[in-house]
């Protein structure tokens, strides 16, 4: 287990007012597995501090605010190695941190949330997009900052339908997460009036992502794989496992755009996003971390800022007081998405616009104009209140 204490940034530098009392200490933990998954594209290979770098910026931002309120934030990161028990690590973090940001697979997160249930620790899920964590497996002590698969799929579907690309060729990977993403895409197609003209499975037969003459082989493989498809407008790929989707653009048999896991990708953040003041956080992030900001970084930053926002409003570091405020009607957080983000009170999922990015630019932001909702247009993305299976307890 690697443990690092990061924090105490800049607190000593400027004191606009002299505070007699010691500052209110707010500890935030960060729990995740060590190691990063391998991606097909070398430029998308996540850094070792993916996610935690965003939390670190939130701590810095919170401390800038905190110096005016006599509040001080620290971040403690725990990286689980193979075989480490996430429950044990989370319990140790909970000894000094009332709030823990997690980047954990669904099963680990459920174990941790059940173990910490009676301790009052508030968990912020920054890393898992599984819908079941917000539905049948929802927990009352977990706030979901990451969007769900269904939110991402709906965001993409709204744009494709607006674009009149309604006939989809769906290509699904052979791993469980790929199938879950495909489920979400099928649901979106039904909801927004797209038609899946055919489905194909791309079997993962193993093999290295890096080879010295890979392009030649892929260039033969992908056109063959996509030939003889019924007439379609867009190829939608479900490949969270990074096995094939990035090989599809420009290589399909028919000249068609690619979306989903490659091409036009729905995401909570992109390094090219510069609207709504986003350029400011992009600049701050690059200055602090010497690299671009990823979706996971943004999700962790937002989690850290939610804690900071609630502690500044309540002037409290008591997890219960802070959590009640976050769950209350007055809570919202600004995250450079052009509107305030609020929590769905039925499953503690953060409502948020979703960016559609092509790897170089942000192409659009969903919800798309014209997709209406009686409460919030953000609730046109993902599973809505009437359909939820969540019973918070």
């Amino acid at each position, binding site marked *: 287990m690697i443990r690092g204490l990061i924090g105490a940034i800049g607190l000593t530098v400027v004191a606009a*007012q002299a505070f007699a009392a010691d500052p209110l200490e707010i500890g935030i933990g960060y729990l995740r597995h060590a190691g990063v998954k391998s991606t097909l594209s070398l430029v998308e290979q996540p850094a070792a501090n993916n996610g935690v770098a965003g939390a670190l910026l939130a701590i810095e931002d919170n401390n800038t605010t905190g110096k005016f309120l006599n509040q001080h934030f620290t971040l403690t990161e725990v990286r689980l190695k193979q075989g480490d028990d996430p429950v044990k690590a989370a319990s140790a973090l909970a000894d000094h941190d009332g709030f823990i940001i997690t980047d954990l697979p669904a099963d680990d997160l459920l174990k941790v949330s059940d173990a910490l249930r009676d301790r009052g620790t508030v968990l912020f899920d920054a890393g898992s997009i599984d819908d079941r964590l917000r539905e049948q497996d929802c927990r009352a002590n977990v706030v979901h900052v990451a969007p769900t698969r269904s939110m991402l799929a709906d965001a993409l579907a709204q744009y494709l339908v607006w674009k009149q690309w309604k006939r989809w060729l769906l290509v699904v990977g052979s791993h469980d997460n790929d199938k879950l993403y495909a489920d979400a895409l099928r649901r979106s197609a039904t909801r927004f009036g797209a038609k899946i003209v055919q489905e194909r499975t791309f079997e993962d037969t193993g093999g290295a992502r890096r080879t010295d003459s890979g392009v030649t082989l892929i260039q033969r493989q992908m056109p063959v794989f996509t030939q003889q498809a019924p007439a379609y407008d867009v190829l939608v790929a479900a490949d969270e496992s990074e096995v094939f989707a990035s090989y599809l653009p420009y290589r399909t048999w028919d000249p068609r755009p690619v979306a989903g896991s490659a091409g036009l990708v729905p995401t909570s953040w992109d390094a090219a996003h510069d609207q709504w003041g986003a350029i400011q956080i992009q600049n701050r992030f690059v200055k602090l971390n010497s690299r671009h900001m990823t979706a996971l970084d943004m999700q962790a930053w937002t989690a850290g800022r939610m804690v900071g*926002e609630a502690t500044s409003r309540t002037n409290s570091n008591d997890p219960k007081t802070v959590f009640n405020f976050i769950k209350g009607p007055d809570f919202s957080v600004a995250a450079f998405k052009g509107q305030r983000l609020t929590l769905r009170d039925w499953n503690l999922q953060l409502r948020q616009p979703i960016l559609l990015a092509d790897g170089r630019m942000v192409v659009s932001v969903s919800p798309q104009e014209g997709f209406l909702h009686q409460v919030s247009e953000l609730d046109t993305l993902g599973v809505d209140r009437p359909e939820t299976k969540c019973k918070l307890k």
Partner: protein
Amino acid sequence: MWRLCLLCLPAVWLIAASPARAYVAYISNEKGNTVSVIDTEKWVVTATIKVGQRPRGIEFTRDGNFVMVAVGDDDIIQVIDTKTRQIADTLPSGADPELFTQDAAGKILYVANENDNTVTVIDIAKRTRLGDIQVGVEPEGMMLSPDEKILICTSETTNMAHFIDTATRQVVANVLVDSRPRFAEFKHDGSELWVSSEIGGTVSIIDPAKHVVTGKVLFNIPGLRSEAIQPVGIGITKDDKTAFVALGPANRVAVVDARSRAVTKYLLVGQRVWHMAFTPDEKYLLVTNGVSNDVSVIDVAAQKVIKTIQVGELPWGVTISP
């Protein structure tokens, strides 16, 4: 050269006090990297001036001879000579200057630097930096109290209005407001400070003596989702009776009874309405509409939009000759 003119400023100020009907409005076009000049008698664009990268905050000097415009991506403030309509000089600001305000004498400029959480104090005549004040994350709104003793700076991610003593340049108080405070405006009698919160969707009214929020202006437009109501620019008439609040992507300017704090009317303007300025005679209010690339002219007494003028790309700020 323009510095010399600034030295003779008090004299010019007195002479210029006699009212003139036709004014000149300067509009900063954030995406176009230009400034549009509007004749307020004919309501036409008479010139378009090329400036630096990402022009936003824009103000006439007190003598009316120059227009200062913050070009954020070039990290400076450019000075346009209003006679030649050329860039005559630059002022040193911190990184990414956005909004700024000047004292009544036109001597000192206070600039919000979004990128490094500071307010920079500049001697306008000497073009030198007098100092920096540390504030919260992403400082933006800047406003001096009518007695000039207090400078207000709003910071967008910290969600505060910072009260800065202009004599000591120390932060003396901080007031939490709703999310992403964009702009601050005092009533002319100094009794109230109004702060708009873009993401929070409210305007907070602060007692400047007690440093507490005493009330909020709330907006509710039937048929429009609440997230689209994003207050930014604020203008209060000299008699302190009426306030105008630009509501961003709600595409409306709210007319507010400044005493009861109730919205009395919503005026439909262009898309993403941002900042505003009154003509000195207060007959007209000009507002910038970022997405529709135009400026709406509001007849203040009639509370009606009377004209729309096409300008450059993404109009942001507006200033009108004294």
